[in-house]
């Protein structure tokens, strides 16, 4: 419940900060209208501590739930019967999960669903898994919402994990909410950070288009579930000597459970190193690139640096690059070793998609561009003069 007590003077400071616009001053006292989500923004600004949110905390036995799970994801099979490969976000989740599991003094477990997947167990172990739950079935060769959800729900009911993490890929974001809905578990979407708070998982995520960060807790229910944005958490160095206990789970999944049939699948062309989400170097252009012709210098630069070409939303809207190259809140999040932002002003929507890059170099002629706030190296000048010169310097240095 949210309560306003008599200390309230109607100063109205809480009115504009309400993300949902439900705070009003009536008769010189704050009043909460319908639509309050108890987000607590008003509590933070009230210097008189006149706004209080009280949550009903019933005694819940959470101790029955133990272990931190990572739901492994694999890349789509190139052909029937091919060996599955792990999606990089799985490595990231295990790497981060390791530290969390140690903090909780619980096991880190990987859940692997598929066909012919046993060969991946060693890789899962090398990134920190103590245990691998393996569910293998011919029906599970390809991802399907219904069959995978059924397998996972069953597994969770049986082993009662404390935490279940998914990569916030299309697949993870398709599967996780379905499972959470069924088991009445808390699920936090698209997290960019995970940590522990008093034995609970503290999940950090951007909201309102990246304008704001929120820390989310789930203190009364188990498991605590989260999808985690790829390319944000740091991948650990794998330890090939690490071993994990393999637990093969016999879960019967009926073929008829799969209610959505795939008629046709088209995978994006291009070799993976040049996909912006996986490239080590991303050279991005924004509105300042002006036109397609002048954008080409970035392709050349990316080629020379062995990287991929990205674009800001403005550049995509201008038709300089297809949407698949868009970096940012409504595009792809990247965290390469080098991010070069050329002619990008640095709107918040863009920044949230690239700020975790190791080294950011920004080229912009406006010295006040927001992009310089996140750049390790800022280059103030006309990129149409600078970049061609850089290209020839790079060519000469080879």
């Amino acid at each position, binding site marked *: 419940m949210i309560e306003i007590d008599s200390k309230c003077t109607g100063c109205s*400071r809480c009115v*504009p900060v309400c993300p949902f616009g439900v705070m009003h001053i009536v008769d010189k006292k704050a009043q909460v209208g319908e639509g309050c989500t108890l987000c607590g923004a008003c509590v933070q600004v009230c210097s008189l501590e006149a706004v209080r949110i009280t949550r009903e905390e019933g005694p819940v036995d959470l101790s029955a739930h133990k272990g931190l799970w990572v739901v492994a994801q694999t890349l789509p099979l190139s052909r029937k019967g091919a060996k599955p490969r792990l999606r990089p976000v799985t490595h990231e989740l295990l790497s981060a999960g390791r530290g969390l599991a140690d903090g909780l003094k619980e096991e880190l477990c990987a859940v692997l669903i598929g066909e012919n997947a046993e060969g991946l167990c060693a890789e899962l172990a090398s990134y920190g898994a103590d245990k691998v739950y393996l569910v293998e079935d011919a029906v599970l060769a390809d991802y399907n919402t219904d069959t995978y959800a059924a397998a996972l729900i069953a597994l969770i009911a049986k082993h009662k994990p404390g935490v279940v993490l998914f990569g916030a890929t299309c697949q993870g974001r398709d599967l996780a909410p379905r499972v959470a809905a069924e088991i009445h578990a808390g699920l936090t979407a698209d997290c960019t950070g995970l940590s522990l708070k008093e034995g609970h998982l503290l999940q950090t995520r951007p909201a309102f288009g990246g304008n704001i960060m929120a820390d989310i807790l789930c203190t009364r229910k188990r498991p605590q579930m989260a999808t985690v944005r790829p390319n944000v958490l740091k991948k650990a160095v794998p330890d090939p000597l690490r071993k994990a206990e393999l637990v093969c789970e016999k879960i019967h999944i009926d073929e008829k459970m799969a209610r959505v049939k795939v008629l046709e699948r088209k995978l994006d062309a291009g070799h993976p190193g040049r996909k912006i989400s996986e490239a080590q170097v991303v050279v991005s252009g924004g509105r300042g690139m002006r036109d397609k012709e002048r954008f080409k210098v970035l392709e050349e630069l990316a080629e020379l640096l062995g990287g991929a070409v990205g674009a800001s939303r403005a550049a995509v809207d201008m038709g300089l690059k297809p949407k698949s190259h868009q970096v940012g809140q409504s595009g792809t999040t990247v965290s390469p070793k080098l991010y070069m932002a050329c002619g990008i002003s640095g709107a918040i929507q863009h920044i949230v998609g690239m700020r975790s890059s190791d080294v950011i170099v920004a080229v912009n002629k406006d010295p006040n561009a927001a992009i310089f706030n996140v750049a390790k190296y800022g280059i103030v000048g006309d990129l149409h003069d600078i970049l061609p010169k850089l290209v020839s310097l790079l060519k000469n240095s080879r």
Partner: protein
Amino acid sequence: MTGLDSIARGLMLDSLRDYAKRRLPYEELRRLDRENEFPADVLKELYDPEILGIHLLLIPQEYGGLGGSTFDIYRVCEALAHIDLGVATSVFATFLGSDPIRVGGTEEQRRFWLGKIAKERLLAAYGATEPDAGSDLVALSTRAAHVVKNGKIAGYRITGNKQWISNGGVADLAVILALAPGGPSWFVVEKGTEGFSANAHEDKHGIRLSNTCALALDDVFVPAENLIGGVEGQGLSQAQAVFGYTRLMVAAFGLGAGWEALETAIRYSRQRIQSGGPLSQKQGYMLKLIVPHAARLEAARAFIEDTAHRLDAGKHGLQTEGSIAKLAATEAGNRAAEDAIQALGGYGYTKDFPVEKIKRDVKITCIYEGTSEMMEMTVCRGRWQEHLKSRGTYYEEQAAALDRLHASCPTVGADSAALALRALNKILEECRLQRLTRHQHVTMRLGEYIAQAETCAAFCRAASADHYSETVRFDAQTWQALCRIHARETAADICLKGAKLVLGAGAMNPGFADALGLGAILAKQAGALEDQELAMKKLAESFRSR
């Protein structure tokens, strides 16, 4: 008029803004402005009931329209002015051209002509002004002579010239004010009628997207049923009857264009860095070029809305109120646009930024539908009567009401507003005692003070309300600060300028200076800077840079 609810209004405004964003980006407006081009296709789309159907709002439901209220139409006018005043003027000309029919037409005429405008998406024009008869319609020289057939009046032959007619060259029909044997009367004249022609499109300072022409009527025959109302001699009262309403719409233009300029300046001020920080944080800049305009425009808004609600509640006329609204809003808009150029510095002086165009455009709002000077006369004339009739209690009673308001809501500056009204009352009374209104200058200045005082009072009432109008985009703290700023300014202005006026024109009567309450007014200035700084911060927060 019942009109729409706030949700429907909001949806319409969203649709209108979305249309403008797609169809009329600044580069396109700039081109049309440069080439002095009337965007006929845009007007067609604005009238297309599948795209927008904007003209339907002014036509009552029983004639195939949507029956918008005054408040609805004020909102649409304001939104149009945010887009482009030329386009707004063209839409407004149809509103205006259909008004004599709506107000003075017979049931049959209304059904026929309004139904036709609704269904056939006709552009209309309002033909009152003449080369030698501007805001003063009494000097009318266009004549309408009887055409008698079989002993009955079968029609009229109209001869004369009309000047500055919006939509003149593009309208499908025009209403023409002409002197018939029975007195001034309105006639509907359709495009293509023999002898009816439009001169070349004027080369104007602003609103160049709007088509403005002189009209020539050379022995133009119209049938008797085109005489609006069916009775001669009703023309002036029909024209007068809508002034309260039409001037309110021009007020909305001043408000919208003024805010558009101010918004551009505020957004710019957040980006432009000068000596280490954005201009939006520089007191010397914001408190001079931004804050006072926001206060004046919002005061004008409060007055416009008050008048719109009264008209919608069935009040007739409200000519003085319409004139106050127009004077306050268009002058505030004009000044805001002027300072917006200054606020953008060199950029503001170029055509790369829209403020230069807004400044040229908004000037017309101080001229058409009655110049600011006409408004000052009308306002003074109207309120002078009230002052005399009430034996000097008209403003005293309003001041007392503001005192009561201050007691229940001390945060809107109603105390200053009460002082302003009392000072005004003393000045009016002094003018009466010394018979100073024989000087035209005095009357017109009084008109200005009256408009300022009444908008100030309206702002205080609006800012102290429990629920704000849907149009207020600021929180209570900001709006009340703007209200206090305006109230303080008004009290000081009226007291000092009024004293100067009276003393300049007449003699110093003992006790007059003391009665103005200068001491109290000056005491109320405490905290002015703090309020302005708050307003500056909030204004900058409310408009992010794009």
